[in-house]
């Protein structure tokens, strides 16, 4: 009786073209993203004659990295991390403290200027270590307790960086952070030079294009790493835990170690992103790592499609665009619309009413809330859901149907 089921399985598998379909769509999205990544800086430089959009894109890239990392925790392993910004802060401060004059004013009385390329990995390991330290005692708890522990941790960490002002400068932030340097770099018309040439002893300083190239490379490395993890034994273990922890444990998966790895690996990406953030902004302050940042990254992951890397990247870019382009440009648009419609009086400030423009500026929280609620209710799988998961669900349904038919025939 076992053999016919096995052949059925194979035939269903072949009929759905599981592998081919996954490869097709995700590869198409990767291709489009890659082309956009190359064309975007050139096009925006040509069109606007300023590097503003490129530096914005570099900042968006930080969030793409964060979303890819949080996706490992939330999307793959199904653990809700509400304090993800804490690991981001740890990465950023690790770099900022050891690559600026800050520690000269601390009880250490010695400023360290370690190179960015080294500190990027140090930040990665420090964040991962904190993830492991936090995760070790808490990951045996139930899922929603974990959410609360991470939320508490996310509140404590920025507060600590604020309070330990002897070391971190507290509210004054850490400034004057070193920029990455490279022995050689290519310059050309896009960077204001006349000809394409090789520069020796290149300092990134505040060159948006150099940072853009760096973040694109970092994102590509992250995507390769994470998609390999996803297909690995560990990735399958994560998904088994996400679907049913008890069943996964019964199948011989060490759930605590597996969850701990998800937590630490997820944290390491934000450590990575933190170091980049510190270098590209040159300033790290405790109030850039509040709960809102954790929620923003979570919204990116949920909207894009939990568990699907391409979806998460697109989600991160869409949310970043909404927050940094659409909402800031709304007030002016709404004002001019109201004037043309004849509701111009709404534009004026009046007592408690801040005017239509002021009111639209306040939309951010509402937009976050609506996205989270509506996505979970209407399309919990996200814009680009994980194709494997979708197919697996369909596959299971087909199998079940066939078994029923088979049993009916046999009976």
């Amino acid at each position, binding site marked *: 009786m076992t053999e016919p089921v096995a052949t059925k399985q194979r035939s269903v598998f072949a009929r759905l073209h599981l592998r081919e379909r996954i490869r097709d769509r995700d590869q198409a999205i990767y291709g489009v993203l890659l082309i956009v990544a190359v064309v975007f800086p050139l096009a925006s430089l040509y069109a606007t004659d300023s590097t503003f959009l490129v530096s914005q894109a570099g900042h968006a890239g930080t969030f793409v990295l964060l979303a890819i990392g949080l996706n490992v925790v939330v999307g793959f392993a199904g653990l809700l991390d509400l304090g993800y910004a804490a690991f981001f802060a740890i990465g950023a401060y690790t770099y900022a403290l050891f690559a600026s004059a800050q520690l000269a004013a601390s009880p250490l009385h010695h400023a360290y200027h370690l190179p960015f390329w080294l500190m990027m990995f140090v930040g990665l390991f420090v964040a991962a270590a904190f993830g492991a330290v936090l995760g070790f005692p808490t990951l045996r*708890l139930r899922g929603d307790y974990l959410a609360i*522990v991470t939320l508490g941790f996310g509140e404590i960490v920025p507060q600590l960086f604020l309070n330990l002002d002897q070391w971190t400068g507290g509210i004054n932030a850490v400034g004057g952070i070193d920029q990455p340097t490279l022995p050689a770099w290519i310059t050309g018309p896009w960077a204001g030079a006349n000809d394409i040439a090789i520069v020796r002893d290149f300092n990134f300083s505040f060159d948006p294009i150099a940072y853009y190239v760096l973040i694109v490379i970092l994102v590509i490395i992250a995507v390769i790493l994470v998609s390999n993890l996803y297909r690995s034994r560990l990735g399958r273990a994560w998904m088994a835990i996400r679907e049913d922890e008890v069943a996964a444990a019964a199948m011989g998966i060490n759930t605590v170690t597996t969850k701990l790895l998800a937590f630490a690996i997820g944290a390491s990406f934000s450590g990575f992103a933190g170091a980049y953030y510190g270098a590209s902004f040159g300033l790290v302050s405790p109030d850039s790592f509040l709960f809102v940042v954790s929620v923003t990254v979570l919204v990116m992951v949920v909207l894009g499609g939990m568990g699907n890397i391409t979806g998460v990247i697109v989600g991160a870019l869409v949310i970043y665009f909404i927050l940094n382009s659409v909402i800031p440009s709304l007030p002016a648009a709404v004002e001019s619309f109201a004037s043309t419609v004849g509701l111009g009086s709404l534009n004026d400030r009046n007592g408690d009413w801040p005017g239509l423009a002021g009111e639209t500026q306040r939309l951010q*929280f509402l937009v976050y809330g609506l996205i989270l609620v509506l996505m979970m209710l209407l399309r919990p799988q996200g814009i680009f859901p994980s194709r494997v998961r979708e197919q697996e669900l369909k596959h299971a349904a087909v199998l079940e149907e066939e078994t029923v038919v088979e049993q009916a025939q046999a009976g």
Partner: protein
Amino acid sequence: MRTARVGGLSVADIGFWSLCLAAVVLLATQAVINPRLFVQILIFGLADGAIFALVALGYTMVYGIIELINFAHGDVFTFAAYIGAAILGLFTVNENSFTVLNLLVLAGVFPVVMLVMGGINITIERIAYRPLRNAPRLAPLITAIGMSFLIEGIMFLWHGPATVHFPDILPHGPGFQTTINGVFFTFKDVFVVVAAIILVSLLAVFITRSKLGKAMRATAQDRDAAQLMGIDINRTIAATFFIGAVLAGAGGIIWGLYFNTVYYNLGFRTGLVAFTAAVFGGIGNIPGAALGGLLIGLVQAFSDAYIGSKWTEVVIFGILIGVLVFRPTGLLGMRVPDK
């Protein structure tokens, strides 16, 4: 899981209780050094703790019945204060002396706001949680965060980032405060604690005596079995949300009357602290939440006074993490089902 045990107690328990003991000993030495200051802080802490207790009850009831951390609860609490301030703004209440109008408005604003908040919370449950009752656990948790941001967003649209003044209509001023043995307290302190005691007692009576309360306890214990016994699960869960919001609504008004300022994201921190209180007392455990609320209020007051207010947040969330790690069942404990 295998736990190391010493004489019937697990190592984690020993750690937990010795930490509690250490805190009590430290406080006792402070009480001996300066008893007046100690009692003064105790009074501040009790008033704060009474409000936290009211909010914590909503968290613990909802968690007890559907195992959901209702992140929006803290914002329901804040929203109550916003609506209360708006209602008081409609009447020309006298903030300088206590008039008959003040008394009438005070007596009216409580039931109105409590009912409105109950209705809002039932709507939230109906829209955001009920459709996801059989979905993976992550889903309602995320909509709860979404609802929290939605309510904050509404309050943000309403009054913006500035603080909102809540009319100071309770009797206050020289005639309504006194100093006994060098300890200063006001009518407001007494009012807050008495109001909270009344509300918690009413809740206790309701839960233990009424039919609906019995249905709630049954549903919390075993939803399927309760359904088989003919209990309308949806109605019972909606009632739980209603009562939780009624208490949070009262808490919001009391907060407004006591502190006289509210702001749109007050609920985030208050909610988190109240949730800590619920976990501290043993989540799902109603007397535990009341006790936890009072204790967290005291912890906050003592930490403000003896450690420094900038460390209070670290202390409270440190307690949260510590309790979850060492004793997830909290002080009074609760059966934690693993589904």
